[in-house]
């Protein structure tokens, strides 16, 4: 089985290339994705290969990009819109919440919206307030949307492959900080990473750390470096999250924490914590802790203080380990 060392941008690019080559109904659309190849170069070369009718440069209007994609998806196509930065998706939020998410339901199952909305999200590139947001909770709170965030090139390809056959709208959140941070072996052939299944990045016995996206390497690095016997769960799919995997792990370790970049209040950590508070309380030795971005907008110069890091994670681990 052949494979290549790819970073996440390359893994996504090659999967989009595959999708375009296999199925004429697949189209990409977004701002600067064609000639320019996307501001992060994720769609580089694809317009030259498939033409400007299938890799479509759009005017500057997110609600139009999303709305058009929904219309395409309702009519036998598989649109893969790109929103240049997730921060700009809010101008299209009504189309997502009130159209994409509700069409299957409101039509009694007659219509559905097989669209994959890709967008880079999160911090780590010194983008300040408007090029760093982690909005996954907005989407995950919206019944009808499926929310995915890969933490490495292998999963990025595998999840995108699954998304291609998925029949409901997906918000595919690409942690921009990880776009080029590492290369891993990515098989040339088709393979799928299932939607809705977490991965146990590392087994461990002392505590369970639930995380996803850009925080996976931060958590892993911290745990390895400090020789913590932690079980690390990478959600991969944020909604529906893999409750079973979390529950199994916490029953084993008796301690739980959640790490994400997004602001704490009503971030995914709240949901995971509430999920455990509902059904794992008997197994818990101590509190459920959250290490997250604070409830402030995302600052430019102080980005490093904003993001969860080794120090903050170790502080929480220390606190958790007091309980036995």
């Amino acid at each position, binding site marked *: 089985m052949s494979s290549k060392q790819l970073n996440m941008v390359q893994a996504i690019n090659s999967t989009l290339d595959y999708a375009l080559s296999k199925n004429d109904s697949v*189209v990409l659309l977004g701002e600067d994705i064609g000639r320019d190849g996307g501001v992060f170069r994720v769609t580089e070369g694809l317009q030259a290969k498939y033409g400007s*009718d299938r890799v479509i440069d*759009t*005017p500057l*209007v997110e*609600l*139009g990009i*999303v*709305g*058009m*994609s*929904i*219309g*395409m*998806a*309702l*009519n*036998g*196509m598989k*649109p893969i819109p790109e929103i240049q930065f997730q921060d700009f998706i809010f*101008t299209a939020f*009504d*189309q997502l919440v*009130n*159209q994409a998410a*509700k*069409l*299957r*339901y*409101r*039509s*009694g*199952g*007659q*219509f*559905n919206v097989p669209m994959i909305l890709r967008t880079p999200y999160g911090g780590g590139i010194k983008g300040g307030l408007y090029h760093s947001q982690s909005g996954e909770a907005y989407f995950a709170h919206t*019944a*009808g949307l*499926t929310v995915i965030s890969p933490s490495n090139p292998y999963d990025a390809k595998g999840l995108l492959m699954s998304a291609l056959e998925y*029949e*409901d709208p997906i918000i595919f959140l690409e942690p921009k900080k990880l776009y080029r941070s590492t290369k891993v072996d990515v098989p040339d052939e088709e393979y799928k990473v299932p939607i*809705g299944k977490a991965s146990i990045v590392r087994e461990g016995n002392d505590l369970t750390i639930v995380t996803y996206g850009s925080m996976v390497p931060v958590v892993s690095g911290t745990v390895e470096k400090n020789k913590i016997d932690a079980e690390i769960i990478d959600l991969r799919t944020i909604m*529906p999250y893999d*409750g*079973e995997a979390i529950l199994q792990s916490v029953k084993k370790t008796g301690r739980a924490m959640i790490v994400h970049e997004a602001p704490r209040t009503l971030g995914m950590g709240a949901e995971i914590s509430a999920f455990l508070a509902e059904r794992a309380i008997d197994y818990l030795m101590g509190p459920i802790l959250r290490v997250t971005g604070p409830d402030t907008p995302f600052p430019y110069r102080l980005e490093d203080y904003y993001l969860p890091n080794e120090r903050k994670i170790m502080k929480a681990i220390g606190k958790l380990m007091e309980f036995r």
Partner: protein
Amino acid sequence: MTEVFNGQEEKDVFMRAYSSMLLSRMFDKKIVTAQRQGRVGFYTPTIGQEATQVGVSMALNPDDLVYEYYRDVPFMIHRGVPVEVLLDQIMGNSEDSAKGRQMPSHYNAKAQNFMSVQSPVATNLPLAVGAAYAIKHRKENKVVVTTFGDGSTSTPDFHAALNLASVYDLPVIFLCENNQWAISLPVEKQTKVEIWKKAEAYGAYGVKVDGNDFVETFKVAKDAVDRARSGKGPVLIEAVSYRIGPHSTSDDPSKYRSEGITEGSEKDPIVIAEKRLKDLGYITDEIIDKMKSEAKRIVDQKFDEREKIPPPKPESMYDDVYKEMTWIIKEEKGDAL
């Protein structure tokens, strides 16, 4: 009358149009009454907009797509949507194709190529543009019609859709049903410019028509559809009519306007149609009366019949959020029942 039809053909087409308008009118009256009697929860009357909708409908092929809005009963009736389908939606019963999930007046009719109606106005427009893109992509010979009111021209979605359809030369007919009111706001306060003129800002073709006259509307729509179908890009039709009724059964127009066009007055689309058909010798007062009582009879009978259908089962509430029910929803369903 029009160069499109020969004699008998024209008669058939016009009579069918009139008959749809009549059925819609009877339907409207019935639902408004039923709402007052507490037999229906809510309704947005269509009275006054019959000619606009039927006129445009006449210009379409059955496989053309329509992304309609909540006031399009006559449009749907004329394209062959059975009255039962509309009634089941309004009642939200267990035979409703949307499983009783949507508020009344939020129809859908897949078989006749109508999309499902949402409430946030004009947000159907970008979807219609995407549909047209798919059509063009597959080189199908179809057009897409999308409808909305005068108030809806102020929305973000109107702007986005008109620009995108123009930039990609897509076969979309934007039908603005200008009934001159957006709930309590008259169109002069909505915008300073006539709506058809807004097409120019996008490089689309704009045209205005008397939306009270189904023949005028048909002619303009025919041109527009031909244009779009032949690849000349989108058209914005402003069909001017008047919202004879209240905005909805919850609305009381006496708060904000004095009477404009009234039912049965000379600008009532049904009155105009009758005059036209009489002038053409297609119809007599006697025929009209018979058709009216027949339409009324059908509506009354179907209403009583559909009213007996039970509501959807509670557990159906959890279906169709996703293709496969998530474990989360499964648990919620289990908890609740």
